[in-house]
């Protein structure tokens, strides 16, 4: 494409001009969350003139944990509201890990809150710790909105239990996901007792306004980005399956047509959550990366048949309606800070790397793709990768197992041998967790700083 400039200094300058690394907003966001938590604690502090005795201390600890749980609950929901700043700037993978982490912490706070408050109330009624169950029943029956709160909390505990690693792995994804959506109901049910029985909110109109504001904003964001935005996107672009192509045994590409698809705002390296309106696939939505830069009339995803859903993709009829939500993901050209880029793909992780390989701006020799697969037959999309490499003057390398099944050597030494200036590259990486971990260590050993290794991992 830029043959006249290829290789020259002018070309490098032109490339660098297009590289504007954008800082992830993670740190300011975390600071804001911390400031909110301090504000919530301040609310308790100003509303508690003094603590009289042990019972008072127990109830106060229950209030603090309850306030923090109520605050974090809103944020846990917010993290899954698909807000573009989180999905595209921080990265969907990182936000999902935050969600899981803060979700676990919030449920722990809820458990502490229920236990401490009920214990404290039992003591106030002149009873002991043994009467805590009786006390809970009494409180549910006598205090406003506590019935709702009890149902919501019960629901929350069920959801939390089903999300524990070993339990979750035994459940089908779709079933787990739809139960997990009940969190919205649980949050709604538990909200009201915070307002009506929460000491801080019952007496303090400003605090109540703040709380309504927090939950109101989160509700608005969820409605906007999880419902209205996808509806508008799909109304506008009306996507359908055009064709299904078998790339290599077990790896298929789905070509998706629609209207003005280049206006969806998708960048190479991003993904959509796809829902195909075919029997058995209607109710499950799955994230698949674009395996080519979006064209005005065509999007392409490439998927390895490993689960139920992916195997069914092969049987998709042309004309099947497609519902997509996105684009999401932060593994894009925005992360780049250097002129030289190394792309590392493991297996079907080639899909976002393939799109980046085609579109990352760069002069001849700036872009290198290292493709790891089990055998040369498993190198999906190899033909077009070779063509792109040829046209762009980019380097393309592969590493496969030897005929006797021995793994290829990807180490700090071998990387430095093949790419002598590897430590001056930005590295984009996509592949299975074990592979990604070992390549990461090799890269660090070869002198690539951690901030220049860009990786997306959906492992919790």
């Amino acid at each position, binding site marked *: 494409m830029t043959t006249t400039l290829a290789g020259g200094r002018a070309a490098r300058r032109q490339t660098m001009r297009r590289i504007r690394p954008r800082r992830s907003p993670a740190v300011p966001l975390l600071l804001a969350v911390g400031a909110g938590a301090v504000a919530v604690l301040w609310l308790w502090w100003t509303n508690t003139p003094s603590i*009289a*005795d042990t019972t008072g201390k127990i109830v106060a600890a229950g209030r603090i944990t309850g306030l923090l749980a109520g605050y974090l609950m809103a944020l846990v929901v917010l993290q899954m509201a698909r807000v573009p700043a989180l999905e595209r700037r921080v990265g969907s993978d990182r936000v999902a890990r935050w969600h899981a982490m803060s979700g676990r912490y919030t449920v722990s706070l809820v458990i502490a809150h229920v236990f401490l408050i009920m214990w404290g109330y039992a003591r106030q009624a002149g009873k002991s710790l043994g009467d805590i169950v009786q006390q809970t029943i009494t409180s549910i029956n006598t205090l406003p909105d506590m019935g709702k709160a009890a149902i919501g909390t019960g629901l929350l505990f069920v959801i939390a239990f089903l999300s524990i690693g070993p339990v979750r792995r035994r459940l089908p994804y779709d079933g787990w996901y739809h139960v997990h959506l009940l969190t919205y109901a649980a949050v709604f049910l538990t909200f009201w007792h915070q307002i009506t029985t929460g000491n801080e909110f019952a007496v303090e109109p400003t605090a109540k306004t703040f709380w309504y504001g927090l939950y109101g904003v989160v509700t608005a964001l969820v409605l906007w980005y999880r419902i209205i935005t996808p509806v508008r996107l799909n109304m506008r672009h009306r996507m359908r399956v055009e064709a299904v192509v078998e790339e290599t045994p077990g790896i298929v590409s789905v070509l998706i047509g629609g209207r003005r698809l280049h206006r969806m705002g998708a960048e190479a390296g991003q993904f959509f959550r796809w829902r195909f309106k075919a029997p058995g696939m209607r109710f499950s939505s799955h994230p698949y990366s674009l395996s080519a830069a979006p064209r005005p009339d065509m999007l392409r995803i490439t998927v390895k048949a490993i689960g139920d859903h992916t195997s069914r993709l092969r049987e998709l009829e042309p004309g099947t309606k497609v519902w997509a939500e996105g684009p999401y993901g932060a593994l894009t050209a925005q992360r780049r800070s250097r002129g030289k880029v190394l792309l590392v793909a493991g297996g079907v992780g080639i899909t976002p790397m393939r799109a980046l390989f085609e579109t990352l701006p760069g002069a001849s020799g700036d872009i290198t793709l290292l493709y790891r697969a089990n055998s040369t037959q498993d190198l999906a999309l190899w033909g077009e990768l070779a063509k792109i490499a040829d046209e762009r003057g980019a380097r393309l390398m592969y590493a496969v197992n030897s005929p006797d099944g021995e793994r290829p050597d990807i180490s700090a030494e071998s990387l430095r041998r093949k790419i002598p200036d590897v430590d001056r590259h930005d590295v984009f990486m996509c592949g299975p967790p074990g592979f990604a*971990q070992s390549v990461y260590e090799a890269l660090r050993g070869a002198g690539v700083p951690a901030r220049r290794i860009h990786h997306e991992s959906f492992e919790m």
Partner: protein
Amino acid sequence: MRKSHPVRRAVLATAATVSGIVLLLSLKPASDPGSAAAAGGAAPPAAARSPQGGAAQPIGNGTVTGDAARTQYGAVQVRLTVSGGKITKAEAVQAPAGGQSDQITSNAVPRLNQAAVAAQSAEIDAVSGATYTSSGYKKSLQSALDKARAAGSGQGAGDGAGSAQARTVTGDVAQTQYGPVQVRITVSGGKITKAEAVQTPEGGQSDQVNSNAVPKLNQAAVAAGDAGIDAVSGATYTSAGYKQSLQSALDKAGG
């Protein structure tokens, strides 16, 4: 992709949360809630302590009601039945209600009543878990004892209808949708010379409504001399509560 350490993270998060909460709790003063409430501006009305705090003081017969003492959770007001210079019965005519308070009150108040009769003074121990209620109770109890002593050193007998001497009678609390209303009247020569509300609904719009309505109701009560007064427009609930409490005060004064 630094290695994650889930167990280490969980231990750290737990330790940080627990120590943070313990720190917050220990930084809070463990002072007497009554004095804290006073510092906060919600001072109970005229709960002046008697300079001579002994229990052996001769006090009059009949019933005497202490001033209502406000606590963080609501008012506490104690009524004593005094006979032969001794407290024969103590009861709370008002105590915090609603929410968790119901449970606390139902546990604490009977104990406080017993303690008051046993101690014959306001020097009673607080009930654990009901610190605020206990503190308010003691205050109202002290005020009732002070009144009983005053009555004892004066006329001898407590309430007497149509007494020429001016005295004040406080009506029962009337609960309204927005909060309790309680009226105190000063009766002299069988006439109401002064009416005032010792308690009215508070907070939010109530403050405004009452600052308008209560003075009018007070005037109306003095003018009418009975509870047959008109409601103030825009303050229907407060007016109804006021009339109810006023009637109860009149009953007490007359009976």
